[in-house]
Each structure stands twice: as C-alpha cells, then as structure tokens.
C-alpha cells in the first residue's frame, strides 16, 4: 500500500527558509506571490493489506520520526 506524507512547519512557527525563498521569488518578478512555506515530502510503500492498519502505521511513523511534532504538522495521503 502506498502513501505520501507531507511534513510542514506548523502554521504559526517561523519558517526562515520559506521567508528567504519567497523574498527571492518576488525579487525575480513573481510579485503576486502571497506566501510560500517549505516542507518535506516522503513516499512510503508498506507491505500491509489492511488500509486502516496501514494508515495507523504511517501515522505512527510520522509521529515518532518523520515529523518533529513540536514544530511540525504532517498530512498523510493514501495513493492506492
């Protein structure tokens, strides 16, 4: 079963990288840019047929390792 996970900084947490990238894009002429936030993306392939079990397991991965829950949120998407 395949999943994708996106980890981003929580809404109110400062994103120094996103800030600098955003400013640079604006300087390059993309003036209609409102905001850009940087995150991480994971593709996960699990040997598990039960969707809810698999979902739980990916969630556990996110909570325990893939994201730093102190400052980050994650979104899980099932692909197939």
């Amino acid at each position: 079963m395949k999943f994708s996970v996106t980890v981003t900084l929580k809404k109110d947490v400062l994103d120094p990288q996103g800030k600098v990238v955003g400013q640079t894009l604006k300087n390059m002429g993309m003036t209609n840019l409102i905001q850009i936030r940087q995150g991480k993306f994971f593709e996960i392939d699990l040997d598990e047929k039960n969707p809810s079990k698999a979902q739980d397991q990916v969630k556990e991965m996110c909570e325990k390792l893939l994201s730093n829950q102190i400052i980050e949120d994650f979104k899980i998407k099932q692909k197939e």
Partner: protein
Amino acid sequence: MKSSVVVFPGSNCDRDIAVTLEKLQFKNTMVWHKETKLPKSDLIVIPGGFSYGDYLRSGAIAAKSNILNEVIKAGNDGSLIIGICNGFQILIECGLLQGALLRNFGLKFISKDIFIKIQSNKNKFFNKYKKDEVVKLNIAHNEGNFFTDKKHLKELEDNDLIPIKYCDEKGNITRASNPNGSLNNIAGIFNKNKNILGMMPHPERMSDKICSDDSGLPLFLSLMN
C-alpha cells in the same frame, strides 16, 4: 593585482579572504550583491559562508543575485574566478562549474584541518605548489560531497581539471582521508578553460603562522605569478 570579493547576505569568510589578499598587496574591493557592475579585476572571489542562510539549497539563492550575471559574463570572458566553500556551491548553482555538492556522507557539519594533494600545478592557481605536494588546509561545511556523472568525471580526469584531492598526512588518497564522501576524494575542480576554480577547503584559513599555518598562501602567490 586587483581583486574583487563578492559579498552576499550571509557570507562570512569575506573579511578573512580580504585580509589575506591585502596582506599580499592585492588591491581589493568588496562588491555587494545588489551591485550591477563589477570593478575591473584580475581575480574575482566568491567567498565562503552561508549566503542566504544556505536556505533551499546551499548557493541556490545567491546564484540568482544581480551581481552573478556580471560574474558569469566575466568568467565566460576568461577572468580568473575562485569560489571557496559556499563560493564553490554558488559557482555550481549558477552553472559556471558542473556537478553537485551533496550533503556530507556522515550527515554532519564538519570543521577540521585536512590534507589535500596537488594533482596538477600546470595552471594559474597552483603553480607555486609542487605536483603531489601534501598541503594542510581547513574545511568547514555541511554540503561538500562532490558528485557528478560519469561523462563529466571522465572529462575532468582527461583534461587535468581536478587540481586537488583529499589525502592523509602522508599523501595517500584513501577512503579514510575523505572527510565528506566526495567522489574520488575530489576537493576542487576547474572549468574547461581552467580560469574558474571551485574548492571546498579554505586556503585563506592557512595564511598566518600565528593562528594555524601559511600553507594556503602559495595559492594566492600562484595567481600573482
């Protein structure tokens, strides 16, 4: 000789290299990244540091700055350019040099004294060193693990475009003496015309016996030759 050191927000070895150049009587100018013109110079330095915080990819954002257009023009016209550490990363990001600098093999920032072996001294930058000379320099980087495709590697090798490789104190080029996982222990490369050099080690950090050593000075003396 006239030199220009390009300064980006976040550069932090700009002062160090300026001190070294001035010690050797270079007439040096610091050039702010927002400038649109480079002063006429015999040497252009892209210094080390964390331009734009190393955010997104090291060197990626600096490569989009105003002054870089001028640097690229000068480089293509044959001006001598040296990019050290973050400067090397910028030269790659802006296309003056090829390849990629990946995250260090050990996934940690590494700062320490290392040794390099001069592979070739028939160029503008290393002619004051002997071939196969072992030189102590300092490295300090997170992304210095040089990588490129087979075709480019062959081109580098066939045309004498790899002037320096990491080695141990005795000059053996071994896996153990490779600090960051760099392909074939490559510490620096040239462009095809050998007028543009990118290197991870900092020669300016070895330009004063009181603090460390002066084993980096011959590089700058070579340029004056």
